[in-house]
């Protein structure tokens, strides 16, 4: 069974997921950040694979990715950093990157490395459904990997139903028409969108992301979904307060 699916069997409300950019702030921070997040009882962790041209990301993740690349991060280093955690880390990991990284690294080689690291879930924001159907579904199935699809306020009901049928981990509910790092409170429009998705009674669990930054936005999202993802706000905090103070960021959100 998929690791996130397994997690939902134990807990399926108020799940907190944290996104971080591997190789940021320092090249070798990856393992420490994962350990700290686990200790702070974050439910699952998204490991960002820094990319030079991240189209779905706002300035915060762009900057952290740029810094990480300057630090010397690359897929081989990331896999080396993640491999030893396979035995000790109990918090499910999800990899988030762009399709060109996988393409250039070699699709089969990439999938094998992911499996070797004990990871089974991927988020690739620029992998469209038609390409998934024509090629990647079979590839990922062969390696026991699951792709997470994103839905947005503009995704049609038909398409959401189709995405639901393909989803084995969860559906990533993009909170607004936005790139990552959107700011502010959750609007009434967003609430009615969340309500619409909730009322569709999908088989998949729902996790909200893009624009979730603090306790208030996290709680609102959790009223309509199984949990939420915080990315840019965490990266920002990491840049200011560093890896040692991670728990100070997490506790106010979950307490």
């Amino acid at each position, binding site marked *: 069974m998929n690791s996130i699916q397994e997690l939902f069997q134990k807990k399926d409300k108020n799940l907190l997921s944290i996104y971080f950019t591997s190789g940021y702030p320092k090249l070798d921070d990856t393992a420490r950040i994962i350990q700290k997040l686990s200790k702070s009882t974050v439910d699952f962790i998204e490991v960002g694979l820094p*990319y*030079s*041209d991240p*189209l*779905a990301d*706002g300035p915060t993740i*762009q900057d952290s990715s*740029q810094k990480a*690349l300057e630090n010397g991060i*690359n*897929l*081989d280093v990331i896999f080396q950093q993640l491999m030893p955690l396979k035995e000790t880390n109990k918090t499910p990991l999800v990899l988030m990157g*762009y*399709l*060109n*990284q*996988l*393409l*250039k*690294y070699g699709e089969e080689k990439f999938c094998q490395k992911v499996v070797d690291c004990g990871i089974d879930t991927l988020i690739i*924001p*620029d*992998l*469209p459904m*038609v*390409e998934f159907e*024509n090629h990647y579904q079979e590839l990922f199935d062969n390696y026991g990997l699951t792709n997470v*699809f*994103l*839905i*947005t306020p*503009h*995704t*049609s009901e038909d*398409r959401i139903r189709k995405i639901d049928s393909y989803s084995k981990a969860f559906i990533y509910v*993009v909170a607004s*028409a*936005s*790139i990552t790092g959107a700011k502010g409170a959750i609007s009434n429009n967003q609430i009615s969108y969340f309500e619409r998705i909730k009322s569709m009674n999908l088989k998949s669990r729902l996790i909200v992301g893009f624009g979730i930054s603090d306790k208030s936005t996290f709680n609102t999202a959790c009223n309509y979904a199984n949990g939420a993802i915080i990315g840019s706000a965490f990266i920002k905090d990491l840049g200011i307060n560093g890896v040692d103070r991670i728990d100070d960021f997490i506790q106010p959100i979950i307490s």
Partner: protein
Amino acid sequence: MKSKFQPDENGYFGQFGGAFIPELLHPNVKELADNYIQIIESEEFQTEYKSLLKDFVGRPTPLYLAKRLSKKYGATIYLKREDLNHTGAHKVNNTVGQILIAKKLGKTKVIAETGAGQHGVATATVCALMNMECTVFMGEKDIVRQAPNVARMKMLGAKIVAATSGSKTLKDATNEAIRYWIQHPETFYLIGSVVGPAPHPDMVARLQAIISEEMKWQLKEKTGKENPDTIIACVGGGSNAAGAFYHYLEDEDVELIAVEAAGLGVKSGESAATSQLGEVGIIHGSKTILMQDEYGQIVEPYSISAGLDYPGVGPLHAFLYESKRAKFMNATDKEALDAAYELTKIEGIIPALETAHALAVLPKIDFKKDQVVVINLSGRGDKDLEIYIKYLEA
């Protein structure tokens, strides 16, 4: 049967193309994909498009026999004078067409990316004409090196947004335009080249195809034959080349030459010769050939010419390269500058720096006597005077 140079139902030319876009752009891209061919082929569109091309843009553009250039290189060289279009380049063929499509789809706000500023100016121009709100994304580095076009865009009422990420050039301007589009899905993304997610590459190629459509009858008038022996065009993203090649793609006897910017030299590490330095990958929503490192990180290109300073190439061109239908050559900064001066001095035409790259391969080709060559003179050089003067003084 459908031509192999037309995209399939998923927007692929061979293995290149597709629409690798975040889910948020799916409705926009689908709306366009479902409608663009029908709109372009409608009588209403054709009437308005052709009328604007004639009376607003000034088409047909002349096909000019460059006698002194011909004599120098021992061939019969024609220049397709896209530089004489309103706004000074071929870019306006596409913006006139796309603004009509935007109008038909009920859009009122337009965004665009620009490198040299020619597409930005052409977009700002048609937005002024159609009373639409216009925002142009331009790399910070290009804003400096193409200042006259920035001023023109502002005068035309466009808002200019500086792209400050990455290399601060065309690639980054395109990233920022796409990010803005994600956040404002009600806007129409008026893309400037045969790049981006399907159906943009095909749509832009169809709108630039007017160049080769005219070449056919103009050559027939002048030489008695519709087909030249060779067509030469510069390639950044590839829109002017796509237009100049379009109606000749199936005519295998016509040699097609695409000229890329070699910057300081193909192997210098400061180049934009994508076909020579690139590999298969995804950029701006399209699978194509692009300059990247071993981990798929996009490499920052370099060329003196802002319009060719791009690490990818449109998917049709990737297909033309792979299938060997087109021959890919390249020219360095210096070769382009020398070619610009040569054309200016012997034909009295100051070409754009982009166009100068197409001219710069003339000394590298061994022409047969009476070989009929058409060079697509994609734009004029007013915007490049500062760089030209600096070169002259150096």
